[in-house]
């Protein structure tokens, strides 16, 4: 890797190609596909009536989740949002257990109690998606407080959307993280809309990152569809946090292709706008082009990744179907901490 890095520095490559090995970069592509195919699989299962409720798909936002999570270790923690499938997979979750959760099975990450909106994987540091906009932001600050007091070197990333930046919890959290210099990174995935309301209509500042000034922390804007750019900002913020210098606010500008949830008529945005993002700024397509350009992978390699991902998704859905449903008699389990046996 050291030699790759050296060579890259000489050739002025984008950050990711100087920092990561070819194997790592290929794995990033694989995971971006895994996120997308997972969500397509979940959407399809929903259409077939295998999954109930609703779900919020992050298709189009894969580079953001992957770029932010790349520098994190398994011990580092995240809090996520209602649009959290990508964060979950990027943080290392197994799609089998995610599907099982969506199918309401005891083999799911939350034993069928949480579903899509509460997907979590505590073993890999994902403290959970959230049904409450901005609900995870103070939780992340609390996790960062633990990390600081316990001196365990962990950093915490809080993902949230542009809509969340108008909740009081966002402002209160940034302020506390700043005054206490906590190792937390606030990641606003700005996909242009909170449900139907554009940031122009909801938010008084042009960039969410501008809010950082009010809380004396760096505010960084990145192209959220460019993996390398996101990863670079994430590395810098995490280094700062680990060095005890406090929080950073990263605004990752991106776009969601699908409707807000399963009941969206898309009346607040144009077809042209959606198509423009899909055809000209797709994060996976952009990344593939770069990888090929820099000689990391060829078409055969990409095809192999796609096939491998398709197999993993199909196996995940099978696993989910086979799992047992919770017993009705277990309705009240997990409400309180059960007695230690």
């Amino acid at each position, binding site marked *: 890797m050291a030699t790759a890095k050296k060579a890259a520095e000489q050739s002025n490559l984008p950050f990711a190609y100087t920092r990561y090995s070819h194997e790592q970069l290929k794995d990033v592509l694989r995971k971006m596909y895994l996120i997308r195919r997972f969500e397509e699989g979940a959407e399809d299962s929903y259409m077939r009536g295998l999954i109930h409720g609703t779900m919020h798909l992050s298709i189009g936002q894969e580079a953001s989740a992957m770029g932010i999570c790349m520098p994190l270790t398994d011990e580092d923690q995240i809090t996520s949002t209602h649009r959290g499938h990508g964060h979950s997979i990027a943080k290392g979750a197994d799609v089998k257990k995610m599907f099982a959760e969506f199918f309401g099975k005891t083999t799911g990450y939350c034993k069928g109690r*949480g579903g899509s909106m*509460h997907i979590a994987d505590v073993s890999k540091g994902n403290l959970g998606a959230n049904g*409450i906009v901005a609900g995870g932001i103070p939780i992340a600050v609390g996790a960062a407080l633990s990390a600081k007091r316990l001196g365990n070197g962990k950093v915490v990333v809080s993902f949230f959307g542009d809509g969340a930046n108008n909740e009081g919890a966002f402002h209160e959290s940034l302020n506390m993280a700043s005054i206490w210099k906590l190792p937390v990174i606030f990641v606003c995935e700005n996909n242009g809309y909170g449900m139907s309301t554009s940031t122009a209509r909801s938010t008084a500042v042009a960039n969410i990152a501008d809010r950082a000034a009010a809380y004396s922390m760096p505010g960084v804007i990145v192209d959220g569809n460019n993996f390398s750019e996101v990863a670079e900002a994430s590395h810098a913020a995490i280094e700062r946090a680990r060095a005890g210098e406090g929080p950073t606010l990263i605004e990752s500008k991106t776009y969601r292709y699908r409707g807000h949830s399963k009941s969206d008529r898309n009346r607040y945005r144009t077809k042209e706008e959606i198509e423009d993002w899909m055809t000209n700024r797709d994060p996976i397509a952009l990344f593939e082009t770069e990888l090929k350009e820099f000689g990391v992978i060829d078409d055969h390699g990409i095809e192999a990744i796609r096939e491998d991902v398709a197999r993993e998704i199909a196996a995940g859905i099978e696993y989910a179907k086979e799992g047992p449903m919770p017993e009705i008699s277990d309705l009240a389990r997990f409400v309180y901490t059960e007695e230690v046996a």
Partner: protein
Amino acid sequence: MDVAVRELSYSQAIQEAMAIAMEADERVILMGEDIGVYGGAFQVTGDLVERFGPDRVMDTPISELGGAGVAVGAAVTGLRPIFEFQFSDFATLGMEQIVNQAAKMRFMLGGEVSVPVVMRFPAGSGTGAAAQHSQSLEAWLAHVPGLKVIQPATPHDVKGMLLAAVADPDPVMIFEHKLLYKMKGPVPEGHYTVPIGKAEVRREGRDLTIVATSIMVHKALEAAETLAGEGIDIEVIDLRTIRPIDRETVIASVKKTSRLLCVYEAVKTLGIGAEISAMIAESEAFDYLDAPIVRLGGAETPIPYNPELEKAAVPQVPGIIAAARDLAKGVR
């Protein structure tokens, strides 16, 4: 004068009431998240933004505490806001302004102001939306003097009670069960009101009184029909308002039937069933009781995602039938 009556859904009835209120009074405005072009998360505001414009059908940022407070402030100073919480669960974010400000402002200021705000809360389980989007929190708000809290169960009532709420000088909280939105029923055209604070006997009977709220009224009626076939004659009261409670209607019914079953979706303990039970225990109806009062409410758990667990977490028709049968027959 004959008034035309059509079949409307519950959500259409709400929309019609809001439109009538806005036509009649410039001061009435709607506020909430995604109630404009999106039409509201449950399509209740629908196309009203096209009719009344974005200045009167206002999309707020995702700011429940601030948004609710702005509605309160506007209500105190001359507007008549109808504020929609996207889900009743998010009342928890607006609680400060509802509980500390809206409910108490008139009192604290010695009657110098009124707070004619209406807040709407899509509530309840049954949609697979899991623990943070399925709660029934109406009893929380009903615990606060200064608020009025209603749970209309039919399209007819929701229109009439919403119009009563808009005309009311005090803050009125409307809990709308999400599964009722698509339910249809007869709704008269034009303006009418259904009084806040008045229960409705939906079915008369001699053997047993069921006091139910919101969607449970329909489940109780279904149970009553089934049990009628077994010769058990059930009276079903739709409470409609949980603050202030219509004591007279409930007490009179229990004096008649001597048996009481309370059915509601919110968590069973410390809720509306406890209040109704205590009210009977404290009243002259107590001496008429032939059996202990029975409550059927939500399980002592958050609402689970899994659909079977979700159903098991709130009263369903078979459970109501079983409880009512046992109570009527004196089985305990």
